């Protein structure tokens, strides 16, 4: 079985998701080759064949050109699986490649079960196994679901790839950097995060007070940030920050897979939620079944008294 891994770089830096694809391919037991639009210096440090399209020629992300590059590598390599990270890059590019090749796509794979691909459904409340109907398929792999534990010491065998399509109607204008951070969750030892379950903006103060009592920082899940209750720098998850504090307290967070991916490397996880069966319970070391707005002040008071 052969897997072609579509690596991702941004502004000259290889993204770590590329190694997660390697870990996934190892679980599949597949022979690995890679494709990257970038520079040789950014090549993943593993052995295998790397199809490299020059970043100077093809520029930062242009979906039309990247699609033709990946398809060109597929025609050379003839892989069974073409594997992307389930990231903004994979969301945008994988369906284009699948449609061009007229093959099926399985999105956001979190596990391999009996040779089938396990994906999440309904905010992580259900799982399902999906199988492509044909021998060849496109897959996208959930961030954080597969960790690469091998040595980063190899050097791939590089083969340049060129395509005849030189331009695209789409024009990449530029990147806009993240907003200035109010808080650096990456350095926090304790994070207490508010989720949609806190109900309204005013209630975030209750969670912020608990965070203070713990001597930690306030985090949040995506809906809380989108609703404008707290700034983006507090957001934990695949589109926010990936964190690994010593203690993570999830308050009123159901545990959508994108949030779990951002916090499950925390040393110790406490979830406070009225729903005992919420998907967050899967990741929690301690699941407290309670109304967080009632419990948080009690807990904060005891912490201050201690």
């Amino acid at each position: 079985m052969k897997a072609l891994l579509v690596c991702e770089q941004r502004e000259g830096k290889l993204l770590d998701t590329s190694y997660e694809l390697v870990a996934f391919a190892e679980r599949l037991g597949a022979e690995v080759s890679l494709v990257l639009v970038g520079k040789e210096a950014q090549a993943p440090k593993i052995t295998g064949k790397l199809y490299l399209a020059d970043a100077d020629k093809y520029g930062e992300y242009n979906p039309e050109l990247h699609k033709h590059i990946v398809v060109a590598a597929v025609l050379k390599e003839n892989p069974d699986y073409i594997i992307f990270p389930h990231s903004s890059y994979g969301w945008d590019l994988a369906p284009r490649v699948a449609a061009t090749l007229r093959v099926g796509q399985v999105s956001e794979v979190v596990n391999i079960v009996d040779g089938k691909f396990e994906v999440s459904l309904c905010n992580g409340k259900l799982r399902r196994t999906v199988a492509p109907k044909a021998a060849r398929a496109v897959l996208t792999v959930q961030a954080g679901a597969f960790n690469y534990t091998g040595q980063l010491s190899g050097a791939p065998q590089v083969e340049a790839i060129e395509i005849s399509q030189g331009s695209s109607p789409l024009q990449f204008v530029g990147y806009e950097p993240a907003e200035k951070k109010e808080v650096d969750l990456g350095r926090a030892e304790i994070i207490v995060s508010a989720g949609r379950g806190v109900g309204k903006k005013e209630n975030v103060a209750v969670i912020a007070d608990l965070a203070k009592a713990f001597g930690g920082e306030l985090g949040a899940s995506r809906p809380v940030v989108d609703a404008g209750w707290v700034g983006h720098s507090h957001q934990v998850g695949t589109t926010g920050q990936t964190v690994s504090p010593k203690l993570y307290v999830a308050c009123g967070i159901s545990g959508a897979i994108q949030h779990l991916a951002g916090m499950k490397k925390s040393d110790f996880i406490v979830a406070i939620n009225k729903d005992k069966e919420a998907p967050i319970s899967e990741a929690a070391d301690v699941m407290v079944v309670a109304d967080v707005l009632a419990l948080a002040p009690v807990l904060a008071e005891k912490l201050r008294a201690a």
Partner: protein
Amino acid sequence: MNILVCIKQVPDMESRFKVNGTGDWYDEADLAYRMNEYDEYAVEQAVQLKEQLGNQPEITVLSIGADRVGEALKKALAMGCDKAVQVQDSDSARKDPWQIANIISAYAADKNFDVIFTGMQSQDRGSAQVGVTVAEILGHNCASTLVGFEYADGVVTAKRELEGGVKSVVKVPVPALVTCQLGLNVPRYPTLPNIMKAKKKELQLVPVASLLKEEAATGTEKLYPPVKSGGGIVLEGDLADVADRLLGILKEKTTVMK
């Protein structure tokens, strides 16, 4: 200008989901349904574009599914779409994203839509494929995961959300399809007069068989609740007691409680 918005009706994600009798989908009985959250942003952006262009463009809203999707279509009409299309399919849950994209493309193929809006994914399946695949099939330009949308002189300037708060800006000439991320805008609530007006707007019914010519490319094998990793302690009961037990556990098992 001619605008299409594609929406999906999904169960409320706060529901308790049970696996159905055949083990390949969730039990659809006793669920409350609503418009897919991502699609609400798509509808709002379409209506804002229409308003920007002097209310001239016509917005068609399309949904695939059983008759209950009429409720989601009515909401979109009440938000400002002009006419609705229900592709009648009581078995849409068993269509894979490739088939869903082909149904939409078959409908749109001869209608010269300049801009097509979709959500970036559905809340239930979350495959994040359908919109981009529709664009590929139709040969339209496409930008996904939008948190910013501007239109001028036949070109969409799209702000795409990347990871870690970084965004990228791309210019996309029409005909274009964009997929909408949460936070793109603030979806409006339909007002009562607009709800009343929506009742008079056209709802076209199209049988799925007239549009779908493709076989599924992937199939669901089995559905099940997540396997618990196990070992987690569950605390419940009196709040003060729960708080004491929790702090005791944190003192014992972590290094952060001094």
